[in-house]
């Protein structure tokens, strides 16, 4: 171990900027009077935007830092930008909502910044120890945020999330220990080298499987999804929107990195496990979503189902010819998912009343007559979730299925399209309610929500016509 140099900090500069900014904001917030917490929100957004500006300048860089503990590469930059976008949208949907729900406190934004910084560290981690650190840094603020309203359901959500999250972290740590035992290494490249020298074996496979279980909790893959509907429903909706996007990106980015870098040698075993995990997640997520009447629960199951789709990208990770395509497809789909997901949650937030009313599917009835633009945007999001043109969701699924078929897993691709068909049923129910049933919904009009809905809807449609540069971005975002 050498002493860290200044150049080491350059590799994680976006992360550093954000953490420092969050600490400063924590102090500054003390001097911002109650009732004017909009300033805190603005400052937090400013920090995120500034960090993003810097992260974009790193687009072409590729190096390692801190004696190989962190990476800086196209992959991490792509993920960082995606995470910062989630952070910004997370603030945009939260500001008005928090005021309306009477939970306007400055800590909200600081916690969100800390969580984003944890996620960014996750994207850059080159060592299982760093992954553990990042996991804690991103999760703990989320536990607090989930319980933010201090109402019974919200606190239940927070505690549930905390307990299961801690449990999941335990799996990751245990897996790390076993991997270390098998290879004598915690660095991802070190594990890869040791494993390909033939020192692998059962211990390594078990270790990798345990890490997969831990992350399975984070990304809400079946059978580790039990917490998801309850937490998504109980947490303040603004938190749910952020959590379901950001935590999912972080979890998947880490999984992609760990598996593609450290565990290619045990892909023969892991591919079957990932196949099954992906299949079960798609099936359970989509089938259970059908019977939901609460929009938050429905979107929670939809988020589970989408974890299954993204997991498909992992299945061919051991195939050298396909792995770059599958990583690119996974990254691309994460972008698709984040835009669509935030948009859908923003619409839900527009309809939510205090006391948790306005969250049933029936509450969407008649939306198109009173608020045609909002209904049109929600239709775009639902179509994108199904994977229908002209939306980004269609392009994303096309990319994912392509990776899977190129890897030779035609059966999984067929399962994927069939579950998409099932998902069409419940997503269309929202559209049916909005357009084909009579009702008198009342929505809240807030600039942040209007911005989020418009931005994500327009991006979802327009980018589907010009996906080329996104593809380039995703496919050059290869691992170092």
């Amino acid at each position: 171990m050498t002493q860290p140099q200044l150049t080491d900090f350059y590799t994680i500069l976006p992360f550093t900027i954000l953490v420092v900014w969050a600490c400063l904001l924590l102090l500054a917030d003390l001097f911002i009077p109650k009732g004017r917490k909009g300033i805190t929100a603005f400052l937090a957004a400013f920090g995120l935007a500034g960090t993003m500006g810097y992260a974009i300048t790193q687009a072409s860089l590729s190096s390692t830092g801190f004696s190989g503990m962190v990476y800086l590469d196209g992959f991490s930059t792509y993920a960082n930008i995606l995470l910062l976008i989630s952070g910004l949208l997370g603030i945009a949907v939260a500001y008005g909502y928090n005021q309306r729900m009477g939970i306007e406190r400055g800590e909200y934004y600081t916690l969100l910044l800390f969580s984003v910084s944890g996620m960014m560290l996750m994207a850059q981690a080159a060592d299982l120890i760093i992954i553990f650190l990042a996991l804690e840094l991103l999760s703990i603020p989320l536990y607090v945020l989930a319980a933010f309203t201090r109402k019974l359901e919200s606190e239940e959500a927070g505690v549930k999330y905390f307990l299961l999250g801690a449990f999941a972290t335990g799996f990751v740590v245990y897996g790390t220990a076993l991997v270390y035992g098998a290879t004598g290494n915690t660095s991802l490249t070190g594990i890869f080298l040791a494993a390909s020298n033939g020192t692998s074996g059962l211990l390594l496979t078990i270790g990798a499987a345990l890490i997969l279980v831990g992350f399975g909790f984070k990304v809400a893959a079946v059978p580790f999804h039990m917490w998801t509907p309850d937490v998504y429903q109980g947490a303040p909706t603004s938190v749910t929107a952020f959590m379901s996007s950001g935590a999912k990106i972080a979890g998947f980015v880490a999984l992609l990195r760990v598996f593609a870098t450290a565990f290619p040698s045990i892909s023969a075993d892991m591919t079957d496990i990932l196949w099954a995990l992906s299949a079960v997640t798609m099936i359970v997520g989509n089938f259970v979503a059908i019977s939901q009447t609460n929009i938050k629960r429905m979107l929670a199951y939809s988020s589970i189902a989408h974890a299954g789709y993204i997991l498909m990208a992992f299945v061919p990770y051991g195939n050298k010819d396909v792995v770059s395509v599958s990583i690119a497809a996974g990254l691309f789909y994460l972008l698709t998912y984040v835009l669509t997901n935030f948009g859908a949650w923003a619409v839900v937030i527009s309809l939510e009343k205090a006391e948790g009313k306005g969250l049933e599917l029936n509450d969407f009835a008649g939306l198109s007559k009173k608020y045609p633009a909002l209904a049109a945007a929600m239709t775009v999001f639902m179509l994108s979730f199904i994977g229908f043109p002209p939306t980004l969701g269609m392009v994303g699924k096309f990319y994912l299925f392509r990776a899977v078929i190129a890897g030779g897993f035609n059966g999984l691709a067929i399962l994927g399209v069939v579950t998409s068909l099932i998902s069409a049923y419940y997503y269309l129910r929202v559209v049916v309610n909005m357009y084909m049933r009579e009702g008198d919904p009342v929505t809240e009009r807030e600039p942040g929500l209007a911005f989020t809905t418009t931005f994500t809807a327009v991006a979802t449609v327009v980018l589907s016509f010009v996906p080329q540069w996104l593809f380039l971005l995703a496919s050059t975002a290869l691992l170092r």
Partner: protein
Amino acid sequence: MEFLLQPLTLLTFFPILGVLVILFLNSEMKNAIRWVALATSLITFGISLWMLTQFDASNPDLQLEAKYPWIAVAGWNIYYYLAVDGLSVLLVLLTAFLTPISILSTWTAVEERVKDFMIFFLLLEVGMTGVFLAQDLFLFYIFWEFTLVPMYFLIGLWGGPRRIYAAIKFFLYTMAGSILMLVAILFLGIQTGTFNVPTMLTRLPDLYATTISPQTQMWLFIAFAAAFAIKVPMWPLHSWLPDAHVEAPTAGSVILAGVLLKMGTYGFLRFNIALFPDATVAAAPWIALLATIGIIYGAAVSYAQQDIKKLVAYSSVSHLGFVMLGLFALNPQGVAGAILQMVNHGLSTGALFLLVGMVYEQTHTREIKVYGGLWKIMPIFGTIMLISSLSSMGLPGLNGFVGEFTILLGAFGSKAIGNPWYAGISAIGVIMAAVYILYMFQKVFLGPAGEITHHHELKDLNWREIVTAVPLVIFMFWIGLYPKPFFDILAPAVEKLLSALPL
């Protein structure tokens, strides 16, 4: 600009311009919205005629190509690629022709949400035209799936009492087929390294000789066929059709029968037959069997209907059976007859739906038994209805006869089907068509005045309705009396398509 001024790009996307104009109109300005929509669709029709003047009928290849790399990232090779040839030119014209007619038919029938209606209708036109012109499988798939969305709304928003059920059923049924096609498209794209159909056609023979086994080819054929057979619809996958037709608003039914169903038969023609030659030949007898069952079944069920619209809907199952039989006869007569019959069915069934809609607007019922003696009160309506009915049942001198006769001729001598009995049994379908159509006509128009005819003050067609229906009638006579120009335009392309088959 060069990109936008390509005839096919312009033809496909011109309706978007109308959509943009309508978006900026206040939804209370219903007439302005209607005029904009009508004008847009008429100009689009004009563009399609301009395309026709540029089209070289003696050339069997794709023409008027608009081809630009679209998503050119490594391994993607997706093109924005529109082109037309003899197989698709008539269907493109049919689409552009039926859209203004349908819009005109909604003038008084659609009073609610006119703005949304017209937007969806014009978007639907974009999708349909795109389906017939796209030569890149990715682009084709986008257009193909996209047509579902506006149609879903047209049925679900302006349809009859069970419209929500019908709309969802339509959406899910059709999507069920197309997702399997998606997997097959991806598989083909990965194997051939392109999604561009002409390039794919040059690379596939080698692959069939080496890596892609006949079984795989058959699976690919089936995956594509699933999408198209549901759309056609072939028996036994037809059950969404009566629901969708009965619940859809008149203009929706016209477009559904006139164009959307043709997307299925066109898909067989353009993709199944061209891409999977061995599987096509192997499957031909089976498809012919299903087509024959569909012809007889559709006709028999039509006869049993009490609802005029349902009767016409089931007759579509029967008529489209003829088209499928002709296509998979895999000889020039059969295929040319099938393509012409696609157009004929669009004209005659489109006209029938249109006319049923006109009388429904006045009476709000479609029960056959409450009508009777309508001719006396509505002679113009009766005349047009009679011509359309006769055209639909295939009376010589009208268009239906030309198509069905050529198809049966082709099917009778078809080597691919290998059994003249299919053609023989299908010919019974022609007789059955006469039975159910004349039965309907007699009950509705002749005989003593029925309860509705008695109690309602029924008015004959007004000038707008006549203008809507007459163009269709003109073409029924034209194709019926002098079909040569229509056959000439498609013959070279058909020859070329069939020459690649291992027969």
